[in-house]
Structure formats: C-alpha cells, structure tokens
C-alpha cells in the first residue's frame, strides 16, 4: 500500500474494501490476513479518538492507570485482557458514561478530532451523540416496537430527519437485521432473540450517525451464529466509522480488529500493557505478559 493510500484512509476515515478469501488457520494468520487491508502505524493527531493518560476511580478504588491509546479514524481496535483489568471502565470513559456511576472520578484527556471531551463547558450529550455505544447485554427499550427502537435516538437526541423509513431500512440493513424484521417492524422488541436484540441495539446506535462506536463485549451473551452476524456487521461498519470493541474472545479480536490493545491488572489498577497491529500482538508481542495471555497460558 502506498503513502497516498494511507493518507486517503486517514482523511476520509474509510478503507478500501478487499475480498478476504484465504481460510485462516491460526490467530496470527487471521490477524495478518486482515492487516493487509489496513495500514499499521501511529494514529494521526487530530482525527479519530485519542486517550491521553486516562485514569479512573470508583470511590477510592483506582481501577485504571495512565492509559494512552489512539484510535485512528476508520479502524477497528480490540481491547483484550482478563476480567477486572479495566477494559470496560476504559471504554466507558471514552464517551463519558463512566461518570454516570455515582462516586466515580477520572483523570487525563480524551480527544475526539483533537478536542478534549472532558473540557469544562462541553455539551456532553453532543459527545455521546458522536460516540455511540453498544452494551454487553442487549437492552432494547421494552415499551417500544422494533421500528420505534431503531428511531428512538432521533427523539431522544432531538434530531430532525426527513425520511424516517429510509433511515430505518438503512440502519437495520447495516446492522444485518433488515431481512429478518422488515415484516414486523411494529412488533415489540422483546419478541426478538438475544442475537437479534443485540443487532437491534446496534441499529439503534447507528441511527444517530455516530463517528465512533464503542462496543462493550457485544457478543458475550450470544450464540456463535449471532456472534458471526455481528462480526460481519462490524466489518461492514468499519468502512465508515471508528470502532472500539472490548472482547474476551481472542479469535474474535483477531477476526475483526486492525489493532489490539492488551490490558492487565496485577492486583492494582488496570494498565494498558501493549498496543499494536492485531497480527503483531498475536504473532510477536513485545511483552512477555501479552504473549502469555494470547497463547492461553493464563487469563
């Protein structure tokens, strides 16, 4: 890939689509296969999402220590690590959901397109509008139909959209759910299966057109079939937005991400141990602890 291609990726926040034909055999092969499509390198300052020295506390408990990570526009970054290492806490600091839990605090900066989202006076609802989130447990709104769920963001965030039907179909299609629900948009969302509910939540998050989508273990409650559908959805979405995904499934990290960051807590606050292109993290990690984790020696 040439430099001009790199810059075009970074400027547009999109990728070239390439066919993925080879059957992967190992984790690093899978990752390497993906990496060919994208470019390894440092994130350009001023675009995408950048975390600068982020700490997080719950009351007095120091949960996360000094994490700096760049998520360049149009990439998929996986956060891996054992339970309790601060991945979910970190992802929640990225769209200011962390402060929603009482008695929490944080330190550091999170820059969206170069602007600190924690700056005093910033409109936090605007931030969350640009940085969407999909949660671990599917949480469609129980009082709304499938269609209303997808479009709920318009009402919630008070956005004006001229063509509701078009947006509805677009979001559901991008979330890979359209063909399954197009005949029952007026049905209650509770009647969908867990995997469908989760894709509905993705469609709902897409309807407000976020620049960044944060996914906190989106597949942990799902069967392999639904997981596959959601992974396909992530690959589709990564063409037009920045995605950060927390996952416990290393196969999944290898399949969907361009970059991987490994988090670990040695009893104290969680730290980011190592971050790099996914194929490097899985084939030749620089840190011994990363190697131990990705090869399954612990965690």
């Amino acid at each position, binding site marked *: 890939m040439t430099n001009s291609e790199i810059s075009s990726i970074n400027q547009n926040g999109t990728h070239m689509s390439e066919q993925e034909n080879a059957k992967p055999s190992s984790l690093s092969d899978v990752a390497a296969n993906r990496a060919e499509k994208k470019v390894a390198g440092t994130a350009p300052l001023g675009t995408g999402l950048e975390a600068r020295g982020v700490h997080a506390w719950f009351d007095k408990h120091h949960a996360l220590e000094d994490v700096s990570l760049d998520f360049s526009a149009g990439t998929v970054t996986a956060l891996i690590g054992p339970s309790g290492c601060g991945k979910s806490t970190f992802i929640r600091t990225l769209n200011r959901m962390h402060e929603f839990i009482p008695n929490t605090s944080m330190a550091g900066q999170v820059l969206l397109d170069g602007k600190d989202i924690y700056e005093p006076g910033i409109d936090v609802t605007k931030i969350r509008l640009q940085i*969407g989130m999909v949660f671990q447990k599917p949480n469609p*709104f129980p009082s709304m139909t499938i269609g209303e769920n997808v479009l709920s963001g318009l009402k*919630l965030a008070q956005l004006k959209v001229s063509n509701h039907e078009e947006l509805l179909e677009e979001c559901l299609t991008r979330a890979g759910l359209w063909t399954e629900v197009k005949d029952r948009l007026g049905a209650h969302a509770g009647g969908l299966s867990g995997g469908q509910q989760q894709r509905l939540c993705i469609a709902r998050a897409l309807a*407000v057109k976020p620049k960044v989508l944060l996914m906190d273990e989106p597949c942990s409650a799902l069967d392999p079939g639904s997981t596959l559908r959601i992974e396909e959805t992530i690959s589709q979405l990564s063409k037009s937005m920045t995605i950060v995904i927390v996952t416990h499934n290393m196969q999944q990290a290898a399949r969907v991400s361009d970059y991987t960051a490994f988090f670990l807590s040695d009893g104290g606050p969680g730290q980011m141990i190592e971050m790099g292109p996914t194929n490097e993290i899985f084939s030749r990690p620089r840190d011994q602890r990363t190697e131990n984790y990705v090869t399954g020696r612990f965690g």
Partner: protein
Amino acid sequence: MQSTVKPIRPWAASPRDRALTATSVALSVLASFLVVAVTPMKGKLAYAFVFFIAWLVIDSVLVIRKSGMKGVRDGLAAKITLLGGALVMMAVASILWSVISRGIKGINLAFVTENMRQASLFDPIGKGGILHAIFGTVLLIVIAIIFSVPMGILTALYLTEIKGRAAGLIQFLVQAMSGVPSVVAGLFIYAAIILNTPLRASSFLGGLALTILMVPTVTRTAQEVLNLVPRDLREAGLAMGATQWKTVALVVIPAARSGLITATILGVARIAGETAPLLFTVGTFDSYNFNPVKGENTAIPIIVWRALNGGSPESVQRAWSAILVLLIVVLALFIAARALGTKAMKK
C-alpha cells in the same frame, strides 16, 4: 407417526399422597370433635384450634416415614403459612361479607339515582339517595389525583433520577408525611386557608386536604417502581446523546408505566374512604354541587359518618349501604385505571 408416549407429571402428588392427606385431614376433624366433646372447650374457634393442632401432629406422623424430618419441617412451615394466609383472608372476607350483607338491604334504585334534598337520613328506606355524594367523592378523588399524581411522580423522579442534594431531606419528609393523621391534613387546610383567606369550604379545599395524604403514597410507590427500571435502559438512552430529561420522559417513564398506574391506584385507595380531612374542608350539602371551588359539597364517607351518628335503624342502614356503594365506586375506578393502562400499553 403419532407419538405413543403419554404425558405424565412425575412431580405431582400421587394417589397415595392424596390418600394420606385426606386421611390426616379426616383424622384431624375427628380429633377436633372428640376433644371438644370431652373437654370444657366450646365454640367454632375451639374446633378450628384443635383441628389445626391435630392436623400438624397427624400429618407430621404420616409424612415422617416417606420424607423424614425434612418433610415434617416442610409440612409445618407450609401449614403455618396457610394458617397465616387464611387468617388474613378471613379478616378481608368478613369485612366484605358484613358490608355486603348489611348494605344490600338498603340498596334500591332511588338510593343511587336521587339526592337527599327532599329526604332525611331518618326517612324510610327507599326515599332519597346518595347520587350527590357519589359525584362529590368522584370529584374529590379527581381533584386529589390532579394535584398529587404529578407532584408524587415528580418527587419520585427527583429521588430516583436526579438524586439531588435535597434528596435525603425530601425522603425524610415523604416518610414523615405518610404518618400524618388524616384529621391533621384537614385541620391544616382549615387553619392555613379557611381561616386566613376568603376561600370557604369546598370540594377544591377537600381535594387539597386529600392531596396531603395521597402524595406520600404515590411518591413511595412510584419511587419503588422507578428503581426497578434497569440502569441499562437509562444508559442506552444517554449513550445516544439524549439529555437526562429526554431519557426519563421517553425511556424510563414508559418502562415503568404500569407501576406508575399502580402507584396512582394505591394513592386513591388511601384517600377514597377518608372522612376526617373532609369534615372542616368540604362541609356538607344535600344536593349536587358540581362547582369545585364554590359552595359546600359532600362525599360518601361524610354521609356514612353522619348516618351512623344518626342512630335510628333507617339511618344506620343508609350508612351500611353507602359503604357498599363506596366500595363499588372505588372498585370501578381501579378497573378503569387498569383498563386505561393496558390500553395505552397495547397502543
């Protein structure tokens, strides 16, 4: 091919189990007759008491061979629970029974279609009615709902969603208010408004007195149902760039809707039968008064109070019949609220 397997319920009681239960009940009945016959104990209560004790013992003996001490403990706990339930149900049934059996005698067409303008409480049954008091009660309840439901739900939202600085104080006040004797609510309105402003006793002031009693009930129930809404849903709303207000209005309240209707119903149940707060605030009137802010009015509990104080057989009969009508009015309001709630749900 049709399956030939017959569906069975291996967990259900077998014929042998049922026979054992029947035996122990029969033996206990027998024992109760025997004991009452040979001891000085007398009356229905004695039969019930002996039966229960005998049943505990006999059933335990029969069960011990099959299930051991575990079965005995299970049986004891189940029977004591059953006894507790039966006692409560008996109290409720006995109240209902006395109201229905005594009230029904005074119910006739005139009683629910006429007022007391041309009749007195001491006239023979069949003359005059309490339709004006039914209207009065409904009017008072509607006024109380108009004030206390928004106030109660907003207070609950402050306590569960905003959790502002005054939350602790307000929580304390709500708890303290729910312990206010109802006559004090009436006296408060009397002292604060009737003595100090040109306003005189009216349905409006009665509704205000009832509001004082209803707000804490609505608030506490609403608070509990709002706390049941999963935090996930709130976070989903906020994560889409909604303000807290939008999240509450479009996600939290719809999710808690049926519970909020229950809160309203419980609030109405709290105030529908109140007499004391109305004595100084509504006054009394023998005909229809549809003007909520002008002129005295009446309500079914006031009629009941006055009729019971009347003392004559006709008067007391009117009191019982009025209580029955009050029960029916409140039941009708509950059914209407539930129907509205489920209709809104389906829509």
